[in-house]
């Protein structure tokens, strides 16, 4: 699931800057999809918890993680500049794994998958209607 969330944005991209922007989009979509359902506070709590799992093992987070009015914000581009796209990709995947794991324990993996991919499913549905 976590890999899919990244791949759907970065597939086919090779340019490091483009990959960085795509990873930022991937994170934005995860944040948006989850915040919509569980609320910004709920998502912030979830993200903080996931960060405590991944940050100690991946120094790259020091370059990615930003604090903005008490909320966690990710600057993926800064991470890519400092450590390269591959390292950031692995870090983001770990973060997504942690988010999916924690939330799955709470509300079930099936619902988490639906929440994270709903925009994708909807886009496919809308495209189908237009055709």
């Amino acid at each position, binding site marked *: 699931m976590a890999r899919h969330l990244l791949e759907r944005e970065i597939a086919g991209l090779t340019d490091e800057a483009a990959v960085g922007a795509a990873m930022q989009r991937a994170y934005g979509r995860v944040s948006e999809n989850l915040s919509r359902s569980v609320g*910004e506070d709920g998502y912030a709590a979830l993200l903080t918890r996931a960060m405590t799992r991944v940050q100690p093992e991946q120094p790259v987070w020091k370059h990615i993680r930003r604090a903005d009015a008490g909320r966690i914000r990710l600057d993926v581009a800064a991470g890519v500049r400092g450590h390269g796209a591959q390292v950031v990709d692995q870090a983001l995947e770990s973060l997504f794994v942690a988010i999916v794991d924690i939330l799955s324990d709470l509300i079930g993996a099936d619902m988490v998958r639906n929440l994270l991919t709903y925009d994708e499913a909807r886009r496919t549905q809308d495209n189908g209607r237009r055709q």
Partner: protein
Amino acid sequence: MNEKELLHIRAIATGIPGLDAVLGGGLCEYSFNLIAGAPGAGKTTLVQQVIFANATPEHPALYFTVLGEPTIKMLRYQRQLGFFDAARVPSSVRFVNLAAEAASGNLDAVFDRIATSVADASPAFVAVDSFRTIVGERRAGASDGSIELAHFVNRLAQQLTTWEVTSFLIGEYADAEQRHPVFTIADTILWLSEDVDRNSTTRKLRAVKVRGRNPMPGLHTFRLTSAGMRVYPRIPEQQRRRVLRGNRRLATGVPGLDEMMGGGIPSGDVVLLTGPAGSGKTTFATQFIATGLDDGESCVVAVFEEYPEAYLARAKTVAVDFADMIGRGRLAVTYLRPLDLSVDEMLAEIQSAVERLGATRVVIDSLSGFEVALAPTYRADFRESLYRLVGALTATGVTVLMTDEVIDAYPGGHFTHERVSFITDDILAQRYVEIDGRLQKVLSVVKMRGSEHATEFRMYELTSAGAVMGESLSNYRGITTGVPELVGIPVGPDG
């Protein structure tokens, strides 16, 4: 056209067993429904059950959560319920969190987020849980928010109606707050409450207002189980269609008793069998059921004093195999969780079994056990409850035999509990008497409405094959004292 044309408003089935009947036929499409009650009353479960029963990807539901219970926690616990289908989240049911807007205290921001989400999703159902939280935030931060609040509620109600959505506002309100503007605007108000009486908790629902429908009055019991909510409508007896009684007599299965009753129990009667502990009430009732089964009828037994397994084990004295009859769908033995029961739950259980089996005989064994099984809050209304129960059952044409334990038969000249006898057609009274230093069991037919019956006392025995009526005690007097005296040997035709 002279006749007034009525607008047909489509009914929406709630998906909650019993609730559509209380509402008078489901919810009105595009109605603005207020679900009120204290925390933990079941408001969220009610609304989510309705939504999951109706929402589809083409006609989705938007469920706005506000402050209070965190959404993750709500999803975690609600998905334990049988109706909650995680596969349909968010394709059919979308949860949208309004906490940030609500926390700002800006009602316009709340309204705009709802409006944007509705415009984006074109839902058929919208729920705001809890609406009260939005209101609370606004009022806490405003010097005079009441006018603005009324405007907000009115604006939301207007918009939701013109958006063609059926909406639910969930709010925590106290009884004294019913003058709140939202109560005027709402099309439907369902009030959920919880009564705690000693060790028992009962949940009740009241349809305070249902525009466009004729709801059932009164408080209706409901239960929250792992399947979700189930409502037990408090059905007034007179609202039910009555089945006219025939002239058929039903065999009791106790040799000698039918002739005492003028040929058996009139079909459709309510029979009360009273007696002290150990007098054989359950044995008589079991034989009544066994005979019915033997005659090809279907039967329902409601037991309160023992588990069905124990009842079936004891029923092995009769020739009919009760376990086999259950397997063949001819017999149902119901046992309801005691101590917090409402009469409506019992009625629903028995009626369901009667309808399922096409039963003609029902045994309630015993009334004393039933009364104990009722939640304390219902015991005060036992007479009225029993009246409704019996009325609803006999309206379907079944013959009902109820047993009732009396500590001392004929105390003060009474044969039964005064609270019970008025609803019965026939009364059989058992008791112990001492004859020649031996404890004997005797039975009399105290009352049979509209039928001839024996007026004598007759002894009976409980044998390994069941109860058998014995000889008459017509040559004794003072039987009701418990120590009868022999007044003479009956003289035969030969002198």
